[in-house]
């Protein structure tokens, strides 16, 4: 009986292995494990065995049934998977076709430049201050040491609304307003980005509306050498570690001394190229030590406090950085232009 069972197992497993379709496997299941199958038959004949042999034989019969079942299941799975794979082969796609486009916009390049600069100065302890674009004559001019009838103040350059109000021509009024809020107590460390307006005819290098970023630091011991230090750090972070800066004497009514700040050319490393007009230097900022009149008008004692201020044009920086040749691109909002700044 034992031999019979082992023979059945070997025989069934052999058949299973040779079966090539699910149908055959089903037949094998019925043939061996069905109610009329040989194993059932063997089990039925167990009554004739001596009582002490029955459990052992029962166990064996179950093992054989178990072995055949698991082999059957295993091969059924294999065949089913093979059949599925055969079907899936027909579902093959062309992986080189383009993917579904994801909609993505991006910042305007001026915003990108402004935010980059904001973050640089925030890292150096500056805050971002904002103010109105329609300004009073006082904050736009007088508080910045440009009294009425000052030769450097030309009515022709500003969009006046009334005699007392105008579109700000610079973001420096924000400096005057911020200093006033500090009520004569330092430190004041701000940068103020924003739109400004001047009566320029729009062309490749002029725009009646443009952006400006100005910075101000006022404290008890601020020196021109600190201005050099802060601007060097700024230039190196914005244009690369190897950059140097150079100060040239200049004039702004609200600073004294005043300087123009050049940065060594990031394209040619100072060797001279068309970008820097072969000088190796690119003019990028105006700056200076805050004029004592400006400090005084804003409520700071110029005997105690000194400060520096600087201003730059995001358009110019963006034009240099990205090689843009016409300032009007910034305000036309041509998508083919905007899309190029998708890394910002």
């Amino acid at each position: 009986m034992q031999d019979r069972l082992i023979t059945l197992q070997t025989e069934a497993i052999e058949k299973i292995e040779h079966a090539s379709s699910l149908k055959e496997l089903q037949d094998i299941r019925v043939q061996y494990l069905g109610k009329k199958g040989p194993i059932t038959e063997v089990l039925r004949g167990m009554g004739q065995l001596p009582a002490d042999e029955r459990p052992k034989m029962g166990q064996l019969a179950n093992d054989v049934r178990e072995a055949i079942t698991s082999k059957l299941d295993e091969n059924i799975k294999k065949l089913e998977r093979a059949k599925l794979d055969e079907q899936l082969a027909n579902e093959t796609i062309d992986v080189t076709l383009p993917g579904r486009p994801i909609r993505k916009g991006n910042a305007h390049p001026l915003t990108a430049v402004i935010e980059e600069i904001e973050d640089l100065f925030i890292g150096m302890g500056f805050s971002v201050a904002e103010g109105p674009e329609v300004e009073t004559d006082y904050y736009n001019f007088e508080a910045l040491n440009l009294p009425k009838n000052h030769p450097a103040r030309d009515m022709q350059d500003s969009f006046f609304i009334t005699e007392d109000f105008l579109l700000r021509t610079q973001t420096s009024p924000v400096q005057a307003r911020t200093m006033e809020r500090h009520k004569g107590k330092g430190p004041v460390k701000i940068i103020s980005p924003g739109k400004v307006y001047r009566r320029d005819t729009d062309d490749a290098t002029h725009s009646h509306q443009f952006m400006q970023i100005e910075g101000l630091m006022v404290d008890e011991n601020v020196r021109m050498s600190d201005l050099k230090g802060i601007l060097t750090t700024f230039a190196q972070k914005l244009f690369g570690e190897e950059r140097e800066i150079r100060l040239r004497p200049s004039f702004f009514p609200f600073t004294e001394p005043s300087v123009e700040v050049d940065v060594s050319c990031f394209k040619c490393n100072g060797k001279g190229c068309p970008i820097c007009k072969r000088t190796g230097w690119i003019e990028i900022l105006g700056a200076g030590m805050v004029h004592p009149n400006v400090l005084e008008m804003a409520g700071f004692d110029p005997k105690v406090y000194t400060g520096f201020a600087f201003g730059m044009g995001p358009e110019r920086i963006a034009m240099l950085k990205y090689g843009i040749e016409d300032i009007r691109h910034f305000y036309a909002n041509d998508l083919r232009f905007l899309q190029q700044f998708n890394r910002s």
Partner: protein
Amino acid sequence: MLVSYNWLKQYVDLEGVDPHELADLMTKGGIEVEGVQALNEGINGVLVGYVETCEQHPNADKLNLCKVNIGDAEPAQIICGAPNVAAGQKVAVATIGAVLPGNFKIKKAKLRGEASQGMICSLEELGVDPKMVPKEFADGIYVLSDEAIVGSDALGYLNLDDHILELGLTPNRADCLNMIGVAYEVAAVLDRKVYFQKPEFKEQSETAADYISVNVENQEDNPYYSAKVIRNIQVRPSPTWLQNRLISSGIRPINNIVDITNYVLIEYGQPLHAFDYDQFGSKEILVRRAKDGEQMVTLDDQKRTLKGEHLVITNGNVPVAVAGVMGGADSEVTDKTTAILLEAAYFNPSIVRLASKDLGLRSESSTRFEKGLDRNRVYEAANRAAQLMVELAGGEVLEGIVESGGRYVDCEEVSVSVSRANKVLGTTIKTEEVQLFFKRLDFNYDLEEDLFNVEVPTRRPDITLEEDLIEEIGRIYGYDAIPTTLPDGSTTQGSLTTAQKKRRKVRRYFESTGLFQAVTYSLTTAGKANRYHGLETDEEPSFVSVSMPMSEERTVLRRTLIPQLLEVVQYNQNRQMNDVAVYEVGSTYLAKNSELQELPNEHQKLAGALSGLWQTHPWQSEKKVVDFYVVKGILDGLFALLGLENRIEFEQAKRKGFHPGRTAIILLDGKQIGVVGQLHPGDQKEWDIKETFIFELELDLLFNAEVNPVFFEPLPRYPSITRDIALVLDQDIQAGDVKNGIKAAGGKLLKSVSIFDLYEGERMEEGKKSVAYSLTYFDPERTLTDEDVTKVHSKVLDYVKDKFKAEMRG
């Protein structure tokens, strides 16, 4: 200011400093040299020639056949078409092989059968701006002075071996608007000496005071006025050297008298005026304010109407000049003039500025008056002109000068301490060094310990404060030598404000959603500004308008960003970019009342415009056009990002410029903060763009809304139960209202309601639609039973049936 390098050499030794080096040093020192122009650029082979004979060309009426000695054994035959060529002249000859500006090469030529071995040159052919060419040579060749040596290089005689430095002067450095001032600056920069001579000339025994008197009504308007009389002058062309110097300064030579006044203007920076003494009309000068409406004809033959604010020179009766601006036509120097009344004066700069602006007359003279002259150089300048009139016009100068006001004023004294200078600059400059700097600048001083009391020369009126002297110290010391340090004061923490952070968040959201950021102009037209504002009001508000717009398109400040964004849509769609999705954050402005008496209301707004396809799958021919719900979905996401999703409502509305049936106002806590909708198809046609959806939000209101911080809500521990219902509703019932009704009726157990289907097709009864809602019930404390839900759910159904006349759909 154009500075001739050759001329400058007269005052400062420039040995070993070429024009380009000089330019670099001046720029570093604070006077920016914007360009250095070599006048001989592109010129080669131009020699001095002597015209031996000049006859008419045998075959051409208008051509001359000249024999010109250019130093060779045989004179060259040159054909010349200039009407002013004549035998006996010394001329500039471009010989065979010569090159003229524009890479014009001179070759042997044959003209009407006669050989021509070169060209006799006009100034224009030598690269001189035709506007600068003296009248007598305007239509022909230039005639050199007699001393020119035949066969030598002609450029020297033409001053074309010079370099011109173009100064870009800042308004504070008007002292460099003349050669003497530039000489002082260059001397300081190079640490060299300034040389110049006091003008000297012989005076006649007769005194000027017998010929003219000077009265000034108001000393404040005119602190100093002086007059000299020069007789027996001969008006004629100036000598070559003078013409050359004027040309190199950008001034056209006219005649010796005018040229002399212009020469002194450039040399001393002092504007002068020469009247024809015999045409002056009296022996009296009265300087007074003009009468309102008073008229005079100026040198340019224009009749000018004057105002009470203008200062005039009169002959005691009628104006003969507008002070510092322009002389009158009646007393103009002409070829017939024999006696000169020479004016040298110092007028109040702001009066000159006003008059030149009012009359639209800006000249080399008026700009110098406006920017401030060297008060102490006026008298010297008058003498310099008199000297030149003697030398170049054969004049006789009457004894003395007739004056009003003080000839000289005292120098201002300004003090600076070395310690303060070092503190401001961050340097360690020594007192001895500062002494040297002031010597280089030619500033007198006395020194008490480390305090310099400096006598500031009158040529530098820009220096009035200690800081001004610190700048002088700094720039002579050299900014390159200032160390680089970092501030050592109190440290501060830099940061963005909450609103600034939110603005960045909003920008990132829109960009990740697929919109591009636009930046547009703030100035627009009132017509555009008064549409699309999303308010119910129709009346024209008080726009903020600029008083002198530059163009009709930019007259008022915008109150809405939408028109500008529509311009962006239009711009792009005109260029075949049909799918446009842009947004902008920017300020809008309205005056508080019609007269702008205080700053206008300035609000930041956030607006967008979307047109064309929203989503495409190019090769699967899948296209989703922008519609209202695309835009609404974007805004829903924005409100969720700001934590406001449960406080926002969209309410059907009609607004100017918007589609009457596809527009909603957006309410935050019941208050309007924005509008969204389709651009009115009528407007769309006018804009000539595709169907476009627009929105605009008040950023300040959006950002200022108080929002509770995020607080974690425990994850549900019990299952929820969902029931779907389909309601047949009248078309005019809004799905959102029903949703809100369901929410209210569902009470605490109704966790959420969503709309998942809408059917308006032909199987519906006319005027009806079917909307399907999915209701989710949930109790955080226990597992809900079917009975629990059924109880609430039937309450909800009863409510909507009753409130919205809804019917349940099968």
